[in-house]
């Protein structure tokens, strides 16, 4: 680093393509890359000299590599808009933010103090309440707060700590100092995204990263995982990430963290409280849970004692907490610390509780429930943002609930005093902040964009640890409010750069080594969804095969009243498929059901599998609108069948042969067996119209095999032999029952005390019953009976494993 070409910004050596050219800090605003004199800060020099030497195409190719990584890894988050919710690719800002390691030490020290302070505050709020009694916190802010969860008052968390994982939104002011903009204690998000950001960014800049002494993130997660392990009260306890479910904005991250750390990913419905213990329902029975890293808001955790309208909670959870059953990260009720108005009281509360001054100040905040503060806000309205006092979101993230004082019209400004005094206790004024800028790569150039940092703190056995890095939120435009992701903001990796080589902890062992050593802990709900995914997929395939055969014949005769076509139409109607459209609506619903099941277990899928499924749905929808009966439809159904086969192939080739896979497989086989049984019952009887048997063979994909195996024309007996009783034909009923039996043997609790479980016994009975049948005996009655028995098998499966 003896030469630092980028320091002298005026030299003529730069090419016109240099992305640095023209980069300048905005007046009166600090910049991360440039110091007050416009010089590149030392920690940035290496990166910038690389970037400016790089040909433009090279740089774009590198950034594209990062995008590709995120796309392939399926990193997404959910956005909400007028059109409903949608998934958006993770918006990365490719240029990392570089911060000097020395400066970071000071930041860390400030945030460790803050985490300790927050712990002391929440412990007081739910305990002695001295802060209110002594006049440090206004009672209205507690009693009127929807995050003050009264059922948790006086309930000390096991282990004694309320907070285990926090994040802080911090920003740099014009004077270069850091400010806390918001505390996140409810269910801080972003740590997983920070990891993915890091991986993506290093894909693009691996050489520069490698030589830059950047602190690694892995040991932070490792230490936190160890800390959570230490919270288990019993060795057999499990640790889980508790998610509100796939509809949540950051569901991807919940799944990612769970997989990364080897924890289960659970929803409230997976849990049950038994004798003051929290248990997870798994296919191997109830298993104890010791630690829940929750990503759902506390009030939803228990519909009995908290929000009664919650459908994503666990009834009895608060009762279990009263008995000290489980450690929550963070304790239910901790969300109250996020209240915006509390920021106003932190300086005095810190002196009261810790006996010291805040090391890092919070953004200047005045609660308008007090007269002096109210007057101050009214007098300085031009420099204020006014917002809801109880809001738990920082002003730039609260979807326009806050207003800039300077944006009020003159008349409104004059009445501000009245507004503040009538609504005072519900309002806070905050000083308008200017955030520092950092370079973002936009249209081939680096441009200054406002940024804030989200920094994570984890309680470990050695006290609070601060993640060395994290992520920076980068504005989509020069306005501070533009850093909200819902407003198009992006996220950049943060490099904490040391002047010495940094330790390089190996990344945590891959996920398999954790999940593999806990066989049988597949949550019942996941098993249920996998089973139904299998069934819906197979059901779609069965319907498509019938439809294709129908349309092929219709293309020839163009007469839907022709006996065979009319008969099959009747059959389809009986299974709820009406033929008013060539690609009928019930088929779409079927595929949607498959997607719904899959969405509940998305953490168990590769992004490719998911894409294949959503692509199938999209295509089917298009065909539904456009396709005409006959040739057109037979072509369309062939395409859909091919897409289905693609998904099935992905599952078959890529899914680990674990308990979950077995349920999916049982679902597919059972549905296929049902499909074939019903069809045979309907179409192989003596009264079936001409051509039925050939059509059956076609639907059963067995035309060639039939020709090869039997030296006679298609006959009832050969069809029953091939499609019902041939153990080697992957479309036959017997083949499915055989597969089911094999899978069932491998399921947990297939044997209870050496005896077959009711489910295994039933699967066995069904299989052997059919195996000894002869083609002659296969008639409508037998098929009907078989169908009922299979449905019963499905019921027993549900009772045994899913309830």
């Amino acid at each position, binding site marked *: 680093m003896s030469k630092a070409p980028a320091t002298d910004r005026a030299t003529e050596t730069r090419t016109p393509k240099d992305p640095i050219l023209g980069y300048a800090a905005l007046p009166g605003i600090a910049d991360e890359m440039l110091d007050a004199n416009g010089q590149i800060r030392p920690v940035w020099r290496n990166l910038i000299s690389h970037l400016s030497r790089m040909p433009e195409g090279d740089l774009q190719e590198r950034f594209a590599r990062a995008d590709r990584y995120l796309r392939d890894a399926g990193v997404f988050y959910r956005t909400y808009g007028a059109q409903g919710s949608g998934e958006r690719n993770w918006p990365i800002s490719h240029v990392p933010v570089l911060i000097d390691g020395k400066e970071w030490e000071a930041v860390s020290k400030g945030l460790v103090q803050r985490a300790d302070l927050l712990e002391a505050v929440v412990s007081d709020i739910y305990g002695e309440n001295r802060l209110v009694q002594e006049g440090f916190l206004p009672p209205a802010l*507690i009693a009127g707060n929807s995050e003050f969860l009264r059922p948790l008052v006086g309930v000390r968390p096991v282990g004694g700590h309320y907070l285990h994982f926090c994040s802080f939104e911090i920003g740099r002011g014009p004077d270069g100092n850091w400010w806390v903009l918001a505390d996140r204690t409810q269910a801080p998000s972003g740590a997983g995204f920070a990891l993915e950001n890091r991986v993506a960014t290093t894909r693009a800049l691996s050489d520069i990263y490698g030589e830059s002494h950047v602190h690694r993130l892995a040991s932070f997660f490792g230490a936190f995982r160890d800390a959570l392990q230490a919270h288990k009260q019993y060795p057999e306890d499990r640790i889980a990430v508790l998610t509100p479910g796939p509809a949540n904005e950051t569901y991807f991250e919940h799944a990612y963290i769970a997989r990364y750390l080897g924890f289960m990913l659970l929803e409230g419905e997976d849990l049950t409280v038994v004798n003051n213990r929290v248990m997870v329902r798994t296919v191997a029975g109830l298993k104890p849970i010791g630690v829940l890293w929750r990503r759902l808001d506390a009030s939803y955790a228990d519909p009995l004692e908290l929000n009664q309208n919650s459908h994503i909670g666990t009834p009895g959870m608060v009762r279990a907490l009263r008995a000290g059953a489980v450690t929550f990260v963070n304790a239910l009720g901790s969300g109250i610390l996020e209240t915006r108005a509390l920021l106003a009281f932190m300086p005095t509360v810190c002196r009261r509780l810790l006996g010291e001054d805040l090391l890092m100040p919070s953004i200047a905040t005045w609660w308008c429930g007090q007269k002096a503060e109210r007057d101050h806000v009214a007098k300085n309205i031009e420099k204020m943002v006014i917002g809801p006092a109880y809001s738990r979101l920082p002003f730039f993230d609260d979807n326009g609930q806050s207003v800039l004082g300077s944006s009020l019209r003159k008349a409104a400004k004059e009445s501000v005093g009245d507004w503040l005094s009538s609504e005072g206790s519900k309002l806070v004024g905050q000083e308008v902040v200017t955030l520092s800028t950092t370079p973002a790569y936009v249209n081939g150039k680096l441009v200054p964009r406002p940024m804030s940092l989200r920094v994570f703190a984890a309680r470990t056995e050695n006290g609070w640890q601060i993640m060395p890095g994290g992520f920076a939120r980068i504005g989509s435009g020069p306005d501070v409010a533009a850093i909200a992701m819902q407003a198009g903001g992006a996220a950049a990796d943060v490099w904490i750069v040391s002047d010495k080589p940094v330790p390089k902890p190996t990344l945590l062992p891959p996920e398999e080594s954790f999940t593999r050593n806990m066989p049988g802990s597949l949550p019942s709900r996941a098993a249920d969804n996998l089973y139904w995914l299998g069934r819906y997929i197979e059901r779609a395939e069965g319907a498509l095969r019938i439809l294709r055969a129908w349309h092929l014949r219709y293309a020839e005769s163009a007469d839907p009243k022709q006996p065979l076509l009319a008969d099959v139409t009747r059959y389809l109607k009986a299974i709820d498929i009406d033929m008013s459209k060539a690609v009928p609506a019930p088929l779409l619903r079927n595929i949607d059901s498959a997607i719904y099941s899959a969405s509940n277990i998305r953490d168990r899928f590769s992004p490719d599998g998911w894409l294949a499924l959503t692509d199938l749905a999209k295509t089917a929808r298009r065909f539904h609108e456009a396709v005409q009966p006959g040739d057109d439809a037979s072509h369309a159904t062939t395409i859909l069948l091919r897409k289905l086969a693609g998904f099935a192939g992905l599952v078959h080739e890529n899914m680990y042969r674990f308990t979950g896979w077995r349920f999916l497989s049982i679902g597919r086989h059972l549905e296929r067996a049902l499909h074939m049984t019903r069809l045979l019952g309907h179409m192989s009887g003596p009264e079936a119209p001409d051509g039925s048997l050939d059509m059956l063979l076609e639907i059963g994909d067995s035309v060639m095999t039939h020709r090869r195996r039997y030296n006679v024309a298609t006959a009832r007996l050969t069809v029953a032999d091939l499609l019902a009783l041939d153990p080697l034909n992957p479309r036959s009923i017997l083949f499915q029952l055989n597969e089911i039996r094999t899978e069932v043997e491998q399921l947990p609790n297939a044997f209870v005390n050496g005896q077959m479980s009711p489910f295994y016994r039933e699967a066995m009975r069904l299989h052997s019953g059919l195996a000894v049948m002869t083609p002659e005996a296969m008639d409508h009655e037998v098929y009907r009976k078989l169908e009922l028995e299979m449905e019963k098998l499905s019921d027993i499966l549900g009772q045994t494993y899913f309830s």
Partner: protein
Amino acid sequence: MLYDLNLHMGYVYDVPASGARHVIRVLPLSLPDRQRLIAGSVTVTPNADERTTFVDFFGQQATSVLVRAPHDRLDIRMQARVMVEAPTMTADLSPELDELKEELAELWSVDPASPHHLAGPSPRLAEEPQIAAYAREIARPGQTVREIALALCARIHKDFTYDPEATTVDTTPKEAFRLQRGVCQDFAHVMIVGLRSLGIPAGYVSGFLRTIPPPGKERLEGADAMHAWVRVWCGETVGYLELDPTNDIPAGSDHIVVAYGRDYADIAPVVGVLKGYGNQKVVQAVDVVPLKS
């Protein structure tokens, strides 16, 4: 007055329910100088697999039960003997609104008894501009908080029609106000929203009301029902006053207190979560039997 109380709440399910958890708040409270629970018990059939009791934030003893196996009906019974003294209405020492506001600001407490809990919106009771306007119209300058509360109580009693068919347990105060109809829960909720809009802390009281049979008639068994009324904070000196807008009377020796909360959601007599589908029928029978004292 000395009372024997009998409460029966029966839930009959079309399709058997299982894994049923309930939190039950039906036992009368013991309140110094006001009410004494001499004996009381809560029974649940079928027998609960798990049963615990705890005291909730506002001081009510709650019973938490789990019935795991499928069952087609659940019966909750409460029996209690309770002694009630009528709270006396003394001279009006309550402040005016502005003064009340100052008193409240100087009250540095979030203890369960603190009026701060009753000052703002609560789970079931959001701010309602229309009810606020209605309350503003009633409160006249120079009136004390007690006068305002009594006036609002009388006004709601006059304007609203008691009509069990008009509302359900989930009806919002906004809806009840639009209808000007409802039952004790609706009357109480509307009054609380109105008082809070004026800056007067107000809360919800659940309990029992002795019904007096018409002259010459026998008291009908099981004709009584659980009741609800309003608790108003009238400043430091007076403390809380309980008013019953359904009958336009202050709570007296016919009112037996079971629980205090911010609104119905805090102290619903029975909150349940169970696995099942299909419909359920609820039967409720209450007997408030006065004993010779």
